[in-house]
């Protein structure tokens, strides 16, 4: 590689118990577009080199497994994991070479060794998410829990969301490149405060309806969606400001209640998606929001 002027960051993207939604979301990154991220510099003079990406690579089978084995040797890589890690290997086997079957758990162990940063992409990787939904049939774990169980100590950032917004991933990588991973401000759940610093409720354009006590009684009505199950009062993300898919829309903008998909409580402990949040959850966040009007 005749890359004298460039800083090259090896990136390895692997998938556990996932739905590929984290990938289809990040494919829709607007600025930078995914073609620029893969083929060009993400920042002036800084190139991400995708050593492994299951949905973009040509190779399959043995050769793909060999690419993973080589990627284990990449110093200072960024390892991006989407999907959860099951309690037992057979629930997610990811490759085979000769008689040896690889599992997502083994991949995470071997690829994290030389990684300088691990990113748990999406709520399954960050917190277990849908894959660990009650009754958690496969014992699915988040990357953080898996690291604790296996005594792996690596810098870890959670980019939660079902799916995560593409800016949350690439914006975090850009921030790491500019400031260093140690200087990223994270919340209690290892999420970058840049994107997860405020409640949806604090930033919501329907907030004035909430404060006035004007609540929609059925979907399609004008008013705050609180009574229809909106989880905005307990959910940290910047969706109201950032919006989705080229700023064409976002969940509450489309008249639907926020489901709390960036939260560790998702999907079981946010309550029914279309019913009012249970009061105990609001109380836990009481210092952040105003509930007098309810």
């Amino acid at each position, binding site marked *: 590689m005749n*890359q004298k002027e*460039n800083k090259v960051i090896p990136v390895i993207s692997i998938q556990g*118990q*996932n*739905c*590929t*939604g984290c*990938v*289809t979301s990040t*494919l829709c990154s*607007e600025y930078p577009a995914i*073609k*620029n991220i893969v*083929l*060009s510099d993400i920042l002036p003079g800084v190139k991400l080199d*995708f*050593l492994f990406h*299951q*949905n*973009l*690579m*040509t*190779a*399959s*089978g*043995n*050769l793909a*497994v060999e*690419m993973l084995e080589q990627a284990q040797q990449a110093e200072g890589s960024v390892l991006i994991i989407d999907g959860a890690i099951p309690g*037992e*290997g*057979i*629930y*997610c*086997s*990811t*490759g085979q070479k000769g008689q040896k*079957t690889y599992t997502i*758990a083994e991949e995470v162990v071997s690829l994290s060794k030389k990684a300088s940063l691990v990113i748990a992409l999406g709520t399954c990787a960050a917190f277990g998410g*849908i*894959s660990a939904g009650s*009754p958690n*049939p*496969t014992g699915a774990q988040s990357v953080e829990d898996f690291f604790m169980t296996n005594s792996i100590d690596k810098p870890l950032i959670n980019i939660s969301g*079902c*799916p995560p917004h593409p800016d949350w991933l690439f914006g975090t990588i850009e921030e790491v490149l500019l400031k260093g991973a140690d200087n990223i401000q994270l919340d209690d759940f290892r999420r970058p405060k840049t994107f997860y610093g405020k409640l949806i409720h604090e930033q919501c354009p329907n907030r004035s309806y909430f404060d006035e006590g004007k609540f929609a009684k059925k*979907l*399609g009505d004008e008013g705050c969606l609180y009574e229809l199950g909106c989880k905005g009062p307990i959910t940290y993300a910047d969706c109201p400001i950032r919006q989705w*898919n*080229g700023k*064409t*829309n976002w*969940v509450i*903008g*489309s*008249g*639907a209640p926020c489901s709390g998909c960036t939260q560790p409580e998702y*999907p079981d402990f946010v309550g*029914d*998606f279309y019913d009012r949040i249970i009061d105990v959850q609001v109380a836990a966040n009481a210092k952040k929001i105003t509930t007098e009007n309810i």
Partner: protein
Amino acid sequence: MKKIVIHPITRIEGHLKVEAVVENGVVKDANMSGTMFRGIEMMLEGRDPRDAVMITQRICGVCPEPHACASVAAVDDYAGLTGSIPGNGVNLRNLILATRAIADHILHFYILSGLDYVDPAKVSDYSGQDKDLNMLKGFLEKGYSKPFLPRDDIDYRLDDRTTQEVVGHYIKAMDIYRKAQEAATIFGGKWPHDAAIVAGGVSENITADKITQFLWRLEEVADFVENIYIPDVVAVAKAYNDYLAMGTGCRNLLAYDGYTFGARTLFKGGLVTNTSQYDPVDIEKITEDVTHSWYEQSDELYPGEGRTQPKADKKEAYSWIKSPRYDGEVFEVGPLATLLSTYLAGENQKVNDLIDSSLDLVGAGIEDMYSIAGRHLARALEAKILASEAAGWAGSLKPGEPTTTEYDPPADGKGIGLAAAPRGALGHWLNVENGRISNYQVITPTAWNASPKDKDGQPGPYEQAIIGLKVKESQAPVEILRAIRSFDPCTACAVHLTTPKGGTLGKYKVV
């Protein structure tokens, strides 16, 4: 006799493995394995029926929107709302589904399948002005090649100029995919996992500016489909014309009705057998067999009653995917089935004319559609039909009028929701007791297509498409991969089940 194992099969949705037995360059036997399991349907038990649309979309992040549509259709059916969804609501659901299906087909042909037919490394000789191609050329000149290289030996056949053009379209397809998803998000709320598709309709209110924003994005996507995607598929089908006779598969096709507006249906569902025999589908004849799946053995069950317990140490099993069968027979689903069923039903002359004229362009007949190249052509034609129809549907939206109807369900009941998904026939079966979900079953297109052998030893459609293929010696023969990818696998969709609460989950231990 040699056994070839390809695991992982990349550039698909999810985790899939194939074991093929090859003798004298011909595949004699094949086993397809879905290698990832989550148990999504178990998570639905005890939940509010309306929540199913949120959970079932997470079955698949490549094609969540058909799960949304099938799920709300099942809940509408249970709640007795099917006939009272406002026209706007019906229209919006169809628009979201159609637009995302077009995006999905573009993603499949270029990003997921494209590298089987064109070599991006050939762009190093490019001398034109296209910005994307020059960006790729610069990438190669600086010594980068991953994740495109290394690769196995592939018989790339397009000439250098055509290759460069198609590779340029591969890069452009990433932009068009994004724009198509933006268009659908105007009505759906976000991509992936739409929020606005709800029991009773769609929560998004309609305004004229949203319709216009949608239409102009659709226009750009439709232009790409008509003038780039279709010609590229035709060019590939001509250069690889032996692929119009390869990967034929089981030759039985099954489709559900797709894009229904009251009494009108764009795609007519049905069964196609012996190329020209058309019959309506009786969904009561669908059962799921688990002989070679990691679940406790049971009789084949109708999905409304299906309840299976995982058994990871089952000896004769090799997949997490079950084997859906129709009247005990193997059926293929997908755009090929959707189009040929509509073709034989003969109710939509425009569809028939488009299929006939496209086959003329390729120099092929209807029987050649049962093939690797034929599946790609069917998918592209479906995208073209949807792109042209969607503009009319958007134009008939009524700003300011209702998009939902009130949801006031009974305590107990059952519902079925069917959809013509981008990968074919999708069904959701819902049972409700005391206002909560008591059983939920999903049969996805990829479950039909990637299913393992059944109790009678009949291989599933992928397996049948691979068996008999002539392959070149390699650790991962491209002929096998092209056959599998022609179905557009979505394995997270295919793997799912329900277990009785408290059931044990097997004792298999790895790591």
